[in-house]
């Protein structure tokens, strides 16, 4: 017989936990759900758009009652659980329904807090928590005019905005002198207030409500000094309290909320709790992002996997009032040791503040331009060291150097048909519609359903902004701890550490040791594992071709029509008549449709049929040409300029040094592609300052620059150091490349890697520590001793060449080889 699982509270957190559980162990439990509300589970966050008539109830249902039926779950909607019998292990609802459990999940949410003043029982006084409240407000809006919202926090302002859109005169009453004081500092709050006033909202600040007056229905609100304002509707939105009534009555240990451990277990090991009713390590949360994190971990334990832990969350908020951009995250108050970085442009109503402590961002308030909210929030969570970048942290980054988004930086001003994703042609309207109709919460969801941001990623910031605009809160940033892919709970760093420390030497070993949830991985984790193993065990690990993307398996770039392109290595961009002749002959012999100079100083043969690849390679090889790895997460080009050999400005032999670097580094595999360049003087014709590793020659030596790229998001390099000899340049380059290979996450180019770990960390190892530099360089050379074999030569003949050939069914048929049953 199956175990019995009972959930009390079918709101957002509880039902998310059930969904996560069904993903892991769909057959493990008989599931019964109690919900005090009459409906299935709906998206509470979208109550404000419901109030503003931007949505209908159907639009915001997450799990309609049919969903429960389809998943074999018994739903008792409209029934409130009143007792838990922990000895008998059963729950009883107000109508007498009694259900036994083996495991119980409490997800009872919060109570809206009502300030205890006379008159709160009057008709027309409502809280703002559920569909019933919204219905009451909508009914009042129909035949009444004056609304008073008590509470100038997130909820209150959203209610005020919705009621105003319904045509009411709205006054917001706030006890303090500043709106949203938990999220905003005074300057940002003042801008917000001015902007809301422009939209017609009225404010009574520092006003203490003393009584609500009226005969049977509310007529006015009275303040401390006796002053009154007329009111036909009063919305109380002053805060929430975890709903712990049921837990407390059953003797489950509670403080402010139901106390749980890192597995979301209460003091009764059979009872779990999740959502707003929970208190974890002293904190209660009131936004869905952390609750969803909790739900995922709870499911992991209820499914008896038992290996993940909830370690608390950092939250950020976003106001869902159309056309107003407010973002806040982390600690916005700070202490004596906190520094503030400010940017203010009163004319444009833009205000941005960062709080920095020990060179790390601890909090942020953005008003008017929130485009960088998601990026800054990620920096807070990752604890990024900002000592090198703090000068320009507050200048909008996401559009600087981003290609494909037409330079736009704010989504609120866009029309529905503005294109957001240039790769896949997805417009704002489509994204917003899909978020609402498909009930999406995360960036990944949007990527899957609309394809926006799923290709080159340059529009990611905009899509995150749209998510936040549509949903409020923080959905866009994934869990604090990011697993490498959906097949595992572990991060890239944890996986790399396990490979080294446990001496794991094959993909199946890694998957077994780290409890992979899939038997065979996926197209994301297998290539990553293959690289990590290759990097950790050079000469020992046998490369797994089937875990490589086709380009690396076929040693050529796949094209849109299924043909391939072939780019031979042109050392430092220098070629010869003999090489050019060989390339020309190959192009003729194999009918290559296009021969093109690449942006990387080489020649590309485009449109080669797969079965011709071995032949093409054989011919190129005999002219001394080898693979240019234009297809690989590997060393690509080393761009050079003519340098002192010819140029009247050249200071050093940049061409010669480029060739030496390429000879040293060719054939190396990396987390992402790596490009080098050497320029002969600061005029920098080889564009060395947008390469992963660039050298700019000067009269007195060589400047090293690292972490640049062109591409989707332009990043100029950081200056690493200055050296005197070519030998030193080669050593520093090898050491830098090896550090990148050993430490970066798969698919992380040097630019984001350096931004994540900080230039200072890299300098300490490569520049300041001669011993570690020498070791890294030696490890690079050792690894190179196993990898500098031309893959083309290996595949041009013999058995490996055969794998490029299709099997020709037609020919077999013609030869009469088709088995019996053929009617031909």
């Amino acid at each position, binding site marked *: 017989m199956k175990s019995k699982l009972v959930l009390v509270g079918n709101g957002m957190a509880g039902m998310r936990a059930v969904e996560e559980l069904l993903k892991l162990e769909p057959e493990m439990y008989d599931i019964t759900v109690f919900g005090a509300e009459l409906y299935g589970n709906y998206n509470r966050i979208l109550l404000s758009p419901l109030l503003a008539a931007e949505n209908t109830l159907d639009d915001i249902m997450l799990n309609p009652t049919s969903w429960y039926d389809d998943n074999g779950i018994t739903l008792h909607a409209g029934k409130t659980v009143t007792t838990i019998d922990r000895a008998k292990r059963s729950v009883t609802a107000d109508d007498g329904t009694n259900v036994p459990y083996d495991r119980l999940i409490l997800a009872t949410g919060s109570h809206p807090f009502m300030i205890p003043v006379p008159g709160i029982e009057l008709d027309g006084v409502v809280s703002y928590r559920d569909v019933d409240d919204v219905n009451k407000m909508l009914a009042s809006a129909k035949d009444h005019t004056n609304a008073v919202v008590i509470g100038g926090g997130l909820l209150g302002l959203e209610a005020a905005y919705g009621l105003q859109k319904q045509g009411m005169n709205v006054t917001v009453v706030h006890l303090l002198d500043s709106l949203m004081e938990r999220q905003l500092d005074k300057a940002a709050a003042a801008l917000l207030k001015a902007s809301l006033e422009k939209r017609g909202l009225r404010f009574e600040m520092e006003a203490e409500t003393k009584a609500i007056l009226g005969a049977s229905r509310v007529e006015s609100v009275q303040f401390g000094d006796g002053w009154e304002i007329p009111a036909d509707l009063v919305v109380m939105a002053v805060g929430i309290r975890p709903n712990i009534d049921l837990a407390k009555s059953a003797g489950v240990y509670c403080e402010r909320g139901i106390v749980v451990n890192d597995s979301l277990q209460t003091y009764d090991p059979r009872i779990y709790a999740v959502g707003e009713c929970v208190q974890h390590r002293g904190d209660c949360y009131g936004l869905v992002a952390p609750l969803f994190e909790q739900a995922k971990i709870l499911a992991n334990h209820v499914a008896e996997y038992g290996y993940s832990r909830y370690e608390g969350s950092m939250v950020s908020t976003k106001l869902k009032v159309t056309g107003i951009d407010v973002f806040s995250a982390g600690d916005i108050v700070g202490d004596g040791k906190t520094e503030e970085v400010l940017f203010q442009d009163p004319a444009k109503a833009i205000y941005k503040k960062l709080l920095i402590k020990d060179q790390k961002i601890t909090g942020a308030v953005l008003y008017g331009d929130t485009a960088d909210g998601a990026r800054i929030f990620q920096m807070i969570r990752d604890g990024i060291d900002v000592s090198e970048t703090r000068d320009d942290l507050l200048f909008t980054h996401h559009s600087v150097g981003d290609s494909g988004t037409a330079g736009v930086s704010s989504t609120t001003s866009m029309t529905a048909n503005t294109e957001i994703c240039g790769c896949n042609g997805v417009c704002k309207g489509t994204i917003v519609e899909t978020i609402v109709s498909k009930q999406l919460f995360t960036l990944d969801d949007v990527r899957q359903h609309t394809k926006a941001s799923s290709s080159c990623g340059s529009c990611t910031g905009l899509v995150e902004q749209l998510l936040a605009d549509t949903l409020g809160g923080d959905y866009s940033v994934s869990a604090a701890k990011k697993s490498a892919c959906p097949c595992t709970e572990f991060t890239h760093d944890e996986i790399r550490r396990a490979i080294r420390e446990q001496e794991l030497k094959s993909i199946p070993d890694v998957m077994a040791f780290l409890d992979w949830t899939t*038997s065979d991985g996926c*197209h994301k984790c297998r290539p990553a594992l293959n690289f990590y193993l290759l990097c950790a065990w050079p000469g020992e690990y046998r490369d797994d071709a*089937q875990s490589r993307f086709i380009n690396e398996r076929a040693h050529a770039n*796949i094209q849109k029509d299924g043909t391939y392109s072939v780019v031979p290595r042109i050392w430092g961009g220098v070629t010869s008549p003999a090489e050019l002749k060989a390339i020309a002959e190959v192009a003729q012999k194999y009918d290559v449709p296009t021969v093109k100079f690449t942006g990387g100083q080489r020649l590309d043969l485009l449109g080669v049929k797969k079965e011709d690849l071995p032949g093409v390679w054989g011919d190129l090889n005999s002219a001394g040409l080898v693979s240019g790895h234009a297809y690989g997460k590997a060393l690509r080009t080393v761009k050079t300029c003519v340098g002192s050999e010819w140029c009247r400005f050249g200071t050093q032999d940049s061409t010669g040094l480029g060739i030496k670097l390429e000879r040293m580094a060719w054939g190396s595999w990396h987390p992402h592609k790596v490009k080098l360049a050497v320029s002969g003087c600061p005029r920098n014709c080889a564009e060395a300052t947008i390469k992963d590793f660039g050298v700019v020659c000067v009269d007195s030596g060589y400047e090293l620059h690292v972490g640049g790229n062109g591409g989707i998001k332009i990043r100029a390099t950081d200056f690493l150091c200055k050296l005197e000899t070519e030998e030193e340049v080669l050593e520093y380059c090898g050491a830098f490349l090896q550090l990148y290979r050993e430490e970066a996450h798969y698919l992380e180019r040097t630019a984001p890697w350096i931004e994540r770990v900080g230039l200072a960390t890299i300098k300490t190892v490569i520049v300041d520590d001669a011993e570690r530099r020498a070791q890294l360089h030696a490890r690079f050379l050792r690894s190179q001793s196993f990898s500098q074999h031309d893959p083309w030569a290996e595949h041009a003949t013999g058995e490996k060449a*055969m794998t490029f050939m299709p*099997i020709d069914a037609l020919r*077999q048929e013609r030869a009469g080889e*088709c*088995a019996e049953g053929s009617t*031909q």
Partner: protein
Amino acid sequence: MSWCPAGGLSQIPARGARVLKTGNGNVAVFRTFDDKLFALADRCPHRQGPLSQGIVHGTKVTCPLHDWVIDLSTGSAVAPDSGCTSTYPVKVEDGLVYVDLPNG
């Protein structure tokens, strides 16, 4: 329908595929990590990408062009993508692979 020989089983790498040229376009014959065989038209339902060149994981393949994931047993794209490519029966006899192809 007729059973067409598609070479030796050993010619198809585990987690890989071979291409069979037919009068109706290419057919991809896949072999999974646990040695199950599947034959599908070598055309992704998205934009005709050659599925045979994708990464095979479990009983699915990821198209090399834009990362749609196709279920090998049904030929259908994994949700939220939708679309379907033809599948054909496969069998192995004495180490030789046969695919049941429509005539003509």
